[in-house]
């Protein structure tokens, strides 16, 4: 369970670690906690600060959109994998690990086994997820959006 959550974290931004990345977690976590402060002082403007610099709302919004897309793809991916016949833990683990570019997941794709036994369709799907994760979602997804192809 603990390792399952760790699969989501990822390394630092600008490093070669994959996943959601620590800076995004930090930013969103701070934003959520500051929301409590905003409730106590409804008129105060309380920005999120990283390295003492205030983060603009657009950036927070972008990080947020990223985070939610990540979760959405994770959820959708797990559903696809479990439809292909994987058990609960393995489906979760395999998608989380491929999306975060980690490697070993949980269950039958855990650290002491490998992905060889997965169905072919599952392998293709996981390969796509790896690419999505490595290019941080937007680069790949944008190609699928209709407004990208419109002049």
């Amino acid at each position, binding site marked *: *369970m*603990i390792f*399952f*959550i760790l699969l989501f974290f990822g390394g630092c931004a600008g490093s070669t670690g994959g996943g959601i990345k620590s800076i995004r977690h930090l930013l*969103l*976590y701070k*934003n*959520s*906690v*500051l*929301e*409590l*402060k*905003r*409730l*106590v*002082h*409804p008129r105060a403007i309380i920005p999120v600060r990283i390295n003492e610099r205030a983060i603009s*709302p657009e950036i*927070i*919004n*972008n990080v*947020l*959109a*990223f*985070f*939610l*897309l990540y*979760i*959405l793809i994770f*959820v959708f991916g*797990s*559903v696809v994998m*479990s*439809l292909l*016949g994987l*058990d*609960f*833990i393995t*489906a*979760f683990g395999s998608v989380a690990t491929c999306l975060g570019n980690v490697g070993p997941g949980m269950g039958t794709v855990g650290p002491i086994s490998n992905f060889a036994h997965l169905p072919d369709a599952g392998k293709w799907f996981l390969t796509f997820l790896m690419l999505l994760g490595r290019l941080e979602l*937007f680069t790949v*997804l*944008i190609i699928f*959006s209709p*407004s*990208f192809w419109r002049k």
Partner: protein
Amino acid sequence: MNIKIILHIIGFLLLLTGFFMLTGILFSIYYGSNDIPALLISGLSTIIIGLIIWRATKEARYTEISKREGYLIVTAGWIIMSLFGAVPFMLHGAIPKFTNAFFETMSGFTTTGASILTDIESMPYGLLFWRSMTHWIGGMGIILLSIAILPILGIGGMQLYTAEVPGVTKDKLHPRVQETAKRLWGIYVILTGLEAILLLAGGMNLFDSLCHSFGTVATGGFSTKNASIAAYQSPFIEYVIIVFMILSGTNFTLHYHALHGKFNSYFKDDEFKFYFFFIVIVVVSIALYLIFSNSRAVESGFRDSAFSVISILSSTGFATVNYEAWAPFFSLAFLLLLLFGASTGSTSGGIKMLRHMVMFKNSLLELKRLIHPQAVITVKYNDKSIPHDVISKISAFVLLYLIIFAAGSALMAVLGLEIKSAMGAVAACLGNIGPGLGSTGPVSNYNEVPWIGKWVLSFIMLLGRLELYTVLIILSPSFWKS
């Protein structure tokens, strides 16, 4: 912080709670069950204690309630109410352990419907009625009821209202908060009455029909039968409950407009459309799976799918079948449904549809923003742009929700639950749904959870019912700084 006004209102809440406790005695007398002394003693002493606190602090009556006092009153009120509500169960001996009695009561008030009882049918009638009554009180909210009947709360009522009914948008039915509270409780009573009549017509007795109406309209899920709704084996009863679960998961503002003849207000509302079509798509796809893959009859496949999906989505938690037995895949599908919730402004729990809709739209629009970096692209709800700070609020909420879900699941896993049951239990309690997955699934109960886990889950239920912030804010240091 004005302690007197806080105590004054909590005193009144106890007064109400005690009064509701006594109502169960009617059924004890009718059925001749042995719980009259337990209900009478605890009901009367709750009323007396409430009355003493209320009278002793009456000079605080006309002071204004600040935002912070509002949050404190609501959180403390709910905890104290659950402590008193647990007394009849312990006094009678039906639930001897304090942990279990508190869990059951908190589960009732927060309309979760997670039960530790292994044999519900052996409980005396008065206590069973009180157990369902906790749902009914908690569904629309006891604070809202106080606002509706206590004119002196007109001054600070709004602060209390926002603390108990946080929501996303503030759609008030009337400029005066007391009138809004009256209308909301009015619709609530009408829905409950209608359902009770229909269930009577479907062959339930008065006791069962009232208890199940309380459980449905509050989106609670306590049943008076061990097998829940499956005990009746009646398609009519199941359809009635399906319809009322959908209605209870709908924004009550829309019901109010419909009562005034504006029936098209339902399909003019983006959230309702999202909620409705989401239900249709999920129910139909699961029904198709059941019919073709599990070779079920068309009608019963559809009914089982609709009942289970809507029961979970509306955060009710009644059961007719064990959805996990359909196929391994459904554990995962229902875990996801556990995180959805129904509409804002309804009695349901969870993240709720409006938040999902806004977050989803916002994430997709980010792609558009990447292509047109200079364009200002806003998320629209009912043709109005949603301001930045509201989106930030919603996102902070969704995130905190997921953090609590993840941390809670980890904690439950440490306490010894297997991973699926741990996630299911936390999702079900945080969303005020009731049955989760695995050992806490629709055909089992929470009795086997270790006692620390029961306290954690009780806290999580309260967090979920008051939409996180009302409770969390009290734990934050900036709340106590003056």
